[in-house]
């Protein structure tokens, strides 16, 4: 499997202001995205995530570095045909209906009429907008715009889908739907590259992750490699056992009703606690080992820079 | 700058720039060609329904002075185009508009009057323009001066000339010669007494020798006219009484018609021709 995206030593500076002062935004970005994987691109605000994407898409011309999409130079027509893009806070021609909007983009790809209509119908169904298809985009809510944007990104059945903050501003149900759609892309063999602030979502679906801080990629790798399996502590919830019995076993003992919450730091003590519960004929309500999350890694990386 | 970076990138940009230059060359060549095609121009035709100056003044939103300038500039070009046969049809209207838009703009009054006199041969219009200008600018000596000049030279209406010169000679900034022109107009009109008074005044207040000399010559001329008229009258009376012309001027004194013979300003006697009865001065006033 080749690389869907390969970026090497990408540099970009901007000359801003009346008396032009050069600001270096990208200081030598390098990473690659394998075909068929879901790749998460993280970083604090202003790190250069959106600039990287705009370079990738040919909206900005880099000062130095190479960008390849499926082995092609990124501006080549074949590369562009293979990708779909959903921008952050999308804004579309609000006087068009969803159908007209998608039809326009389909025309840009030169789809034949039958195929065009079929695909539009299918995509509207996929993103859950069939009922709102003939409503003008002006009347759409934020979430609906996000969905129609996603449909637009898929109009050419791209092999690579690039999404800038696709989950922003959506309610939990919406986020789940989008997550599911993204996972389905992977099942269909598509590659997905997206940025997000919502680390839980990234943790849930990404295979690979890169963290960009101050215009540089400071950490990248497979998610499971980055996030160690080390257990930080274990949260135990039991009922039917008097709280005093657990003293000394852990920290953070609290009681609510007949339930006792316990935070156990040492792994060995967990077994002791479980034995105690069995002894007292209590019930284990829940046992959750808390491992290092992506958020921990992220905060550590960003504050460390 | 975008252009420099574009030039560094690829054959497509080069092609575009070549295309750009090609188009530029093409349209410039076409413009040269189109310039050679003669189009019938009737620049004056739309004057017919330009509204009055007053309306234009409101329509130009306070830029009436600028509008006056532009129309004046246009008018100069228009009236210098000899191929437009009927260009003088609306001379009055055009300069009236300019006057309405900027009454204090003096040049158009003069130019309009000039065009009217010299080219359109409509002296009445020239006076109309200058009078209008003077009415709006009562302190400008130049306008009645021009009018007086036209009256003197083209119309030979010395009374009218006198009126105009009288108007202008006392205005601020009026040069000395306006007074002299006034005096001369009086003379030409036959108003000899007043002419004499005026010339005397000029003589007495002359700032330099040259002016004094000019005044002196004119005084000579006027006196000669007065004297020769008196003498001619006297000769006529003599002829009535005696039935014949006197043999010499002294006869007039002997006959008691005159007390004594007047002499010219230089103290010379007047010359009498007994055959015709004509009297004239001994010298030309300008050859003294």
């Amino acid at each position, binding site marked *: 499997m080749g690389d869907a995206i390969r970026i090497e030593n990408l540099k970009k500076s*901007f000359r801003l202001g009346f008396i032009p002062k050069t600001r270096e935004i990208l200081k030598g970005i390098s990473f690659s995205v394998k075909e068929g994987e879901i790749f998460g691109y993280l970083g604090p605000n202003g790190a250069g995530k959106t600039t990287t994407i*705009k370079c990738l*898409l*040919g*909206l*900005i*011309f880099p000062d130095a570095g190479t960008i390849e999409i499926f082995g092609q130079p990124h501006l080549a*027509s074949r590369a*562009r045909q293979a*990708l779909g*893009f*959903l*921008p952050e*806070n*999308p*804004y*579309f*021609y609000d*006087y*068009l209906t969803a159908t007209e909007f998608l039809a*326009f*983009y389909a*025309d*840009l*790809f*030169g789809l034949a009429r039958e195929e065009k209509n079929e695909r539009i119908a299918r995509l509207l169904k996929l993103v859950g907008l069939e009922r709102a298809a003939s409503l003008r985009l002006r009347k759409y809510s934020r979430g609906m715009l996000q969905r129609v*944007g996603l449909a*637009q*990104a898929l109009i*050419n059945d791209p092999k690579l889908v690039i999404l800038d903050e696709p989950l922003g501003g959506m309610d939990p149900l919406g986020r789940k739907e989008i997550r599911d759609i993204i996972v389905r892309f992977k099942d269909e063999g598509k590659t997905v590259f997206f940025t997000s602030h919502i680390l839980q979502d990234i943790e849930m679906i990404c295979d690979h992750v890169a963290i960009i801080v101050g215009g540089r990629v400071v950490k990248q790798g497979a998610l499971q490699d980055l996030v160690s399996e080390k257990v930080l502590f274990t949260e135990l919830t039991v009922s039917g056992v008097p709280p005093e019995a657990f003293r000394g076993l852990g920290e953070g003992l609290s009681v609510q009703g007949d339930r006792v919450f316990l935070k156990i730091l040492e792994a060995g003590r967990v077994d002791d606690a479980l034995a105690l519960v069995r002894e007292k004929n209590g019930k284990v309500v829940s046992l959750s080992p808390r491992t290092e999350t992506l958020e921990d890694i992220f905060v550590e990386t960003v504050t460390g820079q | 700058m*975008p*252009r420099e*970076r*574009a030039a560094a*990138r690829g054959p497509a*940009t080069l092609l*575009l*720039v070549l*295309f*750009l230059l090609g*188009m*530029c060359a*093409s*349209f*410039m060549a*076409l*413009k*040269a*060609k*189109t310039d050679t*095609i003669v*189009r*019938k*121009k*009737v620049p004056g*035709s*739309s004057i*017919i*329904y330009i509204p009055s100056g007053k309306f234009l003044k409101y329509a130009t939103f306070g830029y009436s002075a600028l509008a006056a300038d532009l129309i004046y500039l246009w008018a100069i*070009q228009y009236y210098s185009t000899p191929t437009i046969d009927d260009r003088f049809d609306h001379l009055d209207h055009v300069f009236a508009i300019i006057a309405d838009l900027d009454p204090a703009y003096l040049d158009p009054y003069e130019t309009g009057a000039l065009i009217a006199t010299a080219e359109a041969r409509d002296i009445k219009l020239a006076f109309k323009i200058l009078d209008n200008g003077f009415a709006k600018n009562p302190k400008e000596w130049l306008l009645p001066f021009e009018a007086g000049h036209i009256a003197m030279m083209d119309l030979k209406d010395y009374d009218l000339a006198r009126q105009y010169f009288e108007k202008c000679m006392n205005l601020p900034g009026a040069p000395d010669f306006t007074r002299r022109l006034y005096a001369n107009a009086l003379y030409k009109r036959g108003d000899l007494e007043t002419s004499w008074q005026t010339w005397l005044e000029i003589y007495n207040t002359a700032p330099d020798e040259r002016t004094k000399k000019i005044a002196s010559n004119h005084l000579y001329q006027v006196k000669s006219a007065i004297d020769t008229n008196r003498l001619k009258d006297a000769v006529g009376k003599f002829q009535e009484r005696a039935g014949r012309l006197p043999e010499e001027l002294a006869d007039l004194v002997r006959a008691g018609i005159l007390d004594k013979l007047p002499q010219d300003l230089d103290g010379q006697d007047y010359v009498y021709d007994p055959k015709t009865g004509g009297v004239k001065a001994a010298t030309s006033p300008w050859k003294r």
Partner: protein
Amino acid sequence: MRIWAIAGITFKEAKRDRILYLLFFFAAVAILASRVLAILTVGDRVKIIKDVGLASISIFGVLMAVLIGTSLVYKEIDKKTIFTLLSKPLHRAEFILGKFFGLVLTLLVMTAGMSLIFLVIVYLHTFRIEWTMLVAIAYIFLELVLVTAVAILFSSFSTPILSSIFSLAFYLIGHLSWGLELLIKKMSAGAGRTAAQFLYMFLPDLENFNFKTEVVHNLPIPAGIYLSSFLYGVFYTAFILALAVIIFRRRDFI
């Protein structure tokens, strides 16, 4: 083709712009008002109607081209709709050309509408269909096409207000070419005059498209000028569009 796809939605977008209808309304009023003005003249009434009518189509057409054209590209950049568009396999040149043709199409419809009203009014006065008026209108339209290209050029890198000022300046300069010619005649030979001469050839001469006087006064139009002016318009428009494409191509959309 992609250019036509963009032209299509540009047309759809332009015809929703209320300015268009406002200007059309004013143009219609002006043309109808010429009927009233005609009563005030002494002399040939139809000439006033023709002059006012043609002038209205010209002036309001230019205003439409400038006011809509200058916001056309700017709006896309400002509202960021351009991001999804340019990330498609769409050449930037195709984008510019699509916008251009979309607006030209809109102006064609508007000009046709104004012309219809105009011709009807003229017909009511002369009881003849004056076909020569169409010649003048056709070249007015060509002038509008050129002004549209200029508006789009400025719109691709400047705000609507500045773009409007520049575009109107272009229009004004285009009609004052004769002034520059006069000036050159009165200049003495030297660097100044050569520069002025170059400027004279380079700056637009929009009077090449002005047949209003000839048509209203029934003067003969020399045959050569039809083709000459038409090609001039085409080449100058191509020049402006090429310039727009060159500027737009390398632009970073931050």
